[in-house]
């Protein structure tokens, strides 16, 4: 019994890959993401300048041969700063979203699958957490554990899972009375196995779309927290922070806003294309070619 399920699920992934590789936009998104991730990993080796060395006399200059993306008001190379900023932004985006994903899916699936009293209790907990002011929660965490980037990632993830849990729960509620679940039930599968093998793969579509939306919003959330002094601190930076500072001077030095904005938008598009492609590819209900 078990082995046949293994086969089934592995073919799900194989099918998905075949479908995905036919989707050009999704492949494009995947390629962009890979480039961004590899660049981020290699940044300390390939960055043209130091991200903290200032040249106050130079100040903010528009793009030139020496500084391809110009310099900021401290005379620091923008290309370098965007590369280093990408490391922080991508890291916070992926880690925080991963945390949100794991907690949210498990919570929502369990609540939706069991329904009744379990569901009521679990969702009321979610409601309570929703009502808790987000800032107070983060500030409390920071006060108790000190300022630490990794902690920040987890703190954001620990807040972002709430919506995820609701989405997954509603999906599961719709799925759990369907025939294939009843069939699995009547075959005597344990409930945990049913959740894992049948319910979660069927909820992947909306989850992936929501994930691709969560990553950019998490990146901006990080900028907001950093601006309040709760996240990363100068001279380090992130895309969100660069954009935030760029907005202040968008009339005088537009390149300080445009280039980090492009970097963030590019990531966002890439994630969306990939997410769209993945949703189509992973939908078990879609017809197999």
């Amino acid at each position, binding site marked *: 019994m078990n082995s046949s399920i293994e086969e089934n699920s592995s073919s799900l992934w194989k099918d998905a890959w075949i479908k995905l590789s036919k989707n050009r936009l999704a492949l494009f998104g995947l390629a962009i993401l890979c480039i961004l991730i590899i660049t981020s990993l290699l940044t300390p080796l390939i960055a043209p300048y130091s991200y*903290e060395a200032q040249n*106050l006399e130079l100040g903010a200059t528009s793009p030139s041969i020496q500084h391809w993306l110009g310099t900021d008001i*401290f005379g620091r190379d923008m290309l370098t700063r965007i590369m280093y900023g990408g490391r922080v932004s991508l890291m916070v985006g992926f880690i925080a979203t991963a945390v949100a994903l794991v907690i949210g899916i498990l919570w929502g699936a369990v609540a939706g699958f069991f329904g009744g009293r379990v569901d009521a209790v679990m969702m009321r907990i979610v409601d309570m957490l929703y009502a808790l002011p987000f800032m107070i929660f983060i500030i409390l965490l920071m006060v108790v554990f000190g300022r630490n980037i990794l902690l920040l990632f987890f703190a954001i993830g620990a807040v972002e899972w709430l919506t995820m849990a609701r989405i997954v729960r509603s999906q599961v509620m719709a799925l759990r009375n369907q025939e294939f679940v009843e069939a699995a039930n009547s075959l005597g599968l344990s409930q945990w196995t049913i959740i894992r093998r049948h319910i979660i793969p069927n909820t992947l579509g909306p989850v992936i779309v929501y994930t691709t939306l969560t990553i950019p919003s998490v990146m901006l959330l990080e900028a*907001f927290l950093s601006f*309040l*002094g709760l996240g990363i601190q100068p001279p380090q930076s992130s895309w969100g922070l660069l954009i935030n500072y760029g907005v202040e001077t968008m009339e005088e030095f537009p390149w300080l806003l445009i280039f980090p904005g492009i970097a963030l938008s590019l990531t966002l598009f890439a994630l969306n294309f990939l997410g769209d492609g993945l949703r189509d590819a992973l939908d078990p209900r879609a017809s197999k070619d």
Partner: protein
Amino acid sequence: MNLKNDHYTVFKASKHKKCDFIFLSILLATCVTLTGCGSSETNVVAGNKSGTLYWGNGTEPQSLDPQIATGVPEHHVISAVMEGLVLKDRKTLEPRPGVAKTWDISNDGRVYTFYLRENAKWSNGDAHTAHDYVWSWWRALQTTLGNQYAYMLFPIKNAKRYYDGETSDFSDVGVKAIDNRTLQVTLTNPTPYFLQLLDHYSLFPVHQATIEKFGRADERGTRWSYEGNLVGNGPYKLEEWKINRHITVTKNPYYWDEANVSINSIVFKPVDNAVTEERMFRAGALHVTSSIPADKIAIYQEKSAPELKITPYLGTYFYRLNINTPQLQDKRVRRALGMAIDRKQLVDNITKGGQIPAYTMTPPGTMGYFPESTLNFDPEAAKRLLAEAGYPNGEGFPPIEILYNTNEGHRKIAVALQEMWKNYLNIDIKLLNQEWKVYLATESAGDYQISRGGWIGDYVDPNNFLDMFLCNGGNNRTGWCNEEYDRLILEVAPSQSSHEQRLKIFQQAETILLEDMPIIPVYTYTSIKLLHPSVRNFDDNILNQAMYKDLYLDANL
């Protein structure tokens, strides 16, 4: 008073709108521009016709109680609705009659007798008498009120002893109402700046009946200074106070000089984002701004816009060093930090508003005081000092943290400083920003290592900048205490007979301060604002104080 300075707000992130802030700010700009170009006329045009002044006031005042407020935005509103015995000339800052019509000063300079106006009244029509001052100053000296400016009254005889609890009898204190119209004030020492103090809000009179109606006299945060309750004696009365929206004051019909008040009402707008404020000004929503973003200054200068006003400002931007921090206990380390700041680079390329590099706490030229400094920019000497203190080339120096209140301008300076100290001294600096009120609490509790500070003169005298750093002074906050310094400021300087002698004593005190360096002066402020040309008689003075009743609006512009 404490200057929070031009502070920039953060986009507000609600749970579901985190990514909207860029669009929000663009939207905001568009809205402002649209209101500017729309069919209805702008605030400025309408205001010029109706006699309404729109004033960018920086931030929401914490309180309009003159014996509780400490900041510059509060001052702008309080001085519209209240008035002291003496006013200042709007250009020269020389004393000019306020509630007191005339005054006598005894030959030894210790006894002041004020003759109040017959027609002085409160804004509800009550008679305004000399007894009001006795009661107000009694209130100002109640320790339970928590008046941070109580020390402004200490030149008055026995005021400090009363405040410290050494005498419980207020009649010992040198303030006496001889009759309804005559007030006699006795000072401990001849205090050349005493008349200037009377124009500071901590010595303004408050309306006893109103305060007692809403709570105890020494109770903080009662509703007496709110909309509809506040009774003052200034040229304007409080009409409306909508938190975070506006404060409106209108002409006070009972004001003694009512005939000479030209502007009918003033609307104070708490816009605490300098970028937004500048846009509002361009769109004609404000006559005056409280600041301007540093990077916008050059644009206005290029087209030599008459709206841009950059004028000297009696204030010092500095950093406090908490001398209880282990690595800052050695004064050689503190000196090294002070010497490794390239102030010229900072003012030329970061603040960009014509600020002057500061090497002393007191701004040069205060009452003819041009202090000499033992401080200069010398990275080599700084490195040697740090090595002598046991950290050759910064080795083994534990990372140190700079605290500043959340603000774009402060952040820029801290980031530049961080790199300078890294570069010249090879020490690691971390930055920590906190919201204004949290920052003040952290700093007052001594829970910091290095913290930014700004001090704007309350009156024009070196004393105002130097008496902050007395042992355990309310605004000291560095943990620094030097008995010789205290003696010079408290005893030697006040008892000097000539102005020149006093300045020499201040120089001695300043030298002690700079040698020990519990604070690092960075630059002398300039006042930078945008002012619509229709506002007349807004003369520049180094305290950046406008005399509201002299102002008028030229409707032709």
